[in-house]
């Protein structure tokens, strides 16, 4: 294992992803969790960049950090209990214990499986330098139907969330 600059940066980004993620899990304060989530998204975006998926990385930042996280914060704002903010994100110890057992088992299995797997490498794959052209081609070519369906879905979500969250008519 050669540890060059690339690898170092990668390790930092990976840590940026995983450590806030753990904070999300174990923090009792919901604002802390929310902000940690924010950093997780950021780290993920960095990882996307490492994978030469620039469009995906930007989309991640825009959508997740600019959209979902903000939405999350708004929700916390609207429903939080200011007096006891330190106790807003309690977790159930029993369930945590149980699922930890399960998680460890999964981890063990995953590790075991991973160590013995020889990954398939497609040799003749062309990976373009910039992905956006290719994504555009795919989006309006092979994945046209999903694209249209997703747009319909977004429309429905738009209307639906308005309807669900509106003030009840007196």
């Amino acid at each position, binding site marked *: 294992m050669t540890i060059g600059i690339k690898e170092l940066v990668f390790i930092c980004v990976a840590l940026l992803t995983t450590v806030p993620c753990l904070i999300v899990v174990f923090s009792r304060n919901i604002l802390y969790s929310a902000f940690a989530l924010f950093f997780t998204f950021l780290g993920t975006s960095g990882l996307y960049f490492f994978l030469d998926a620039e469009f995906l990385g930007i989309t991640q930042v825009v959508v997740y950090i600019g959209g979902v996280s903000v939405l999350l914060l708004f929700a916390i704002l609207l429903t939080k209990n200011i007096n006891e903010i330190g106790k807003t994100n309690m977790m159930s110890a029993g369930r945590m214990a149980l699922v930890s057992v*399960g998680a460890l088992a*999964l981890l063990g299995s995953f590790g075991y499986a991973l160590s013995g797997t020889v990954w398939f490498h497609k040799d003749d794959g062309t990976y373009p330098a910039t992905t956006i052209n290719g994504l555009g081609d795919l989006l309006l070519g092979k994945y046209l139907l999903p694209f249209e369906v997703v747009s319909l879905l977004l429309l429905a979500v738009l209307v639906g969330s308005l309807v669900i969250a509106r003030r009840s008519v007196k």
Partner: protein
Amino acid sequence: MNGLVKQFGYLIVLFPLLGAMVNGFFGRRIQARFGEKAVGYLAGGAVLLSFLFSIIAFIAIADNQGQALVNHGYTWIEAGGLRVDAAFLFDPLSTIMLLIITGTGFLIHVYSMAYMTGDPGFHRYFAYLNLFVFSMLVLVLGESALLMFVGWEGVGLCSYLLIGFWFHEKANVYAANKAFIVNRVGDFGFIIGLFLLYWSLSSAAAPLAQGTSILSFSYLAEHVHLIRDSSFFNVSLVTIICLCLFVGATGKSAQIPLYVWLPDAMAGPTPVSALIHAATMVTAGVYMIGRLHFLFAMSGTAMAVIAVIGAATALLAATMGCVQNDIKKVLAYSTVSQLGYMFLAMGVGAYSAGLFHVMTHAFFKACLFLGAGSVILGMHHEQDIRKMGGLRKYMPKTFATFGIATIAIMGIPPFSGFFSKDEILWQAYSSEHGHPALWSVGVLTAGITAFYMSRLMFLTFFGENRRRQAVREAHHPEHETHGHHDAHRIKESPRAITLPLQILAFFSIIAGFINVPAALGGANRFAEYLGPIFGHHAGQVEHNSMEYILMMASIGAVLLGSGLAYVFYIKKPDLPRILAEKLKHPYTLVYNKYYVDEIYAFLFISGTIVLSKVLAFFDKYAVDLIVNLSGLALRTQSRITGWFDATFVDGTVNFVADSTLVVGDNVRKIQTGRVQVYILVLVLIMALGIAVKTILA
């Protein structure tokens, strides 16, 4: 004629039965539609028809030189070796009885039509009366001892029904019960006798006897000699049989010790007393001995017992009759006494004499009873002779007939009673079974009979009417000849009553002449007629002067008794009262009938009552205890089974249901409604699966 009798003889028995059934089932309706007369004519007509047919039978037998004629009916019982035919035997003995029964029966039916008018049970009375005549006819006509016993029981039943005819009075019911029960005691002895007879005869005549009707009289007459020598615990079997049969006779014919029912039986209507307890039923015992005379003749002991008891009963009853104050009771004791004479006759072997006395007694005793009924009617149902008197002025016809019958019973010639009683007394003295002691008892009884019958006559018909005297003295000096004395007016009874009285009185006078003894120049026609049965005076003693002396002695005793009564009740009416006070204890003893009823009550009835109480106690505490215990056991067992069922069986079922519920409840807890828990479970199972797969792979 013989053929007629053989073919149609049963009609004599059938007519009264039909009359009984019609009156029994339809009497109420007939009475309502056609009146009392129709019921009476129906009943009386049935008996009249029987009487006419009896005459035909009598003539047939007389023509037949006394040979028996049998009207075969059908085979009644055929079981194992026992065979009994339902057949009717016509012979001189039974035809004589037939005439007596149907003749007096018819007269009494006519009398009853007048005596019982207005009674609410009018049709019932005639149904019972006809039923009685039917039973009595079966008794005398039965060809087999068992058929005779059927009639025997039947007359007992009818006696019970008729004594207790006015059953709304408790006293009448008790009297009827007493009659029936005492009769039953006698019948028990009778049946034992029949059993022994059958048993011994069938084993003695064994191989030949299978299938034949052993108890028929013809068979018995022929074969009874076979058991002459059998003995039972060293006592002659024949004697035992005869004594057992005689016990039955004492019950039915009111001899010592079973006579106690007859005086009480006066609770029934007077015509009933006349028919049943004077003329017919009570003579059944005498008839039975006559029928089975060949059997009795084989046992000297039995004959002696019969004679002694007959004589003793005659004397005892006569003494009791002297102090009775009820007109019917006097006559009842007189009947018991006269029956004693008849048994005395049978006991000394004078069968035809006994039966002759049966006939004459039927006439004058029926006349006396019916006359008493007339008196009771005239005195407006007063029966105490102390309250009567001077009735000869008011009821002349009754007085005349009563007087004739009294003279007959006392035995004054030439009335019938003299001939029959005298024949008995002569035979008692001179027959080979007889004894002078028996004769003397008989003569003494005759004297006492004369005394009490004269007493009855004098107190009832002579002197002043004591009730009118009492009434007059009570109402003196106010209204003597007032209108309401009409209620106490005494007048003669209607013709339906006096006509039978006159007919019976007539026969009381002339009936004696058919059996005038040879000593007085007669031909003994009655005895001759019965000769084919009893033998023509076998061992007839020659007439010697003894007979005349004895005749004079008996007449003398009668006149003495009668004269004594005259003195006591006409000349010096205070004498009886003074004597009674002087001889207080003997008087009380006799007046209370020697306390025989009380002794019986103490000896037998109290014992029976104690026994029944003991048995009731046993039943209540032992039998009921067992029953209750078994009931308790059953309940306990069922409770245990129920507990078992509730606990185990139901428990199993409930357990299944409950466990389903429990499992369901617990499994339901998996659905918490919390998605997180669902995801948790999902993760765990997935982890488990993957782990297992990884390990295994």
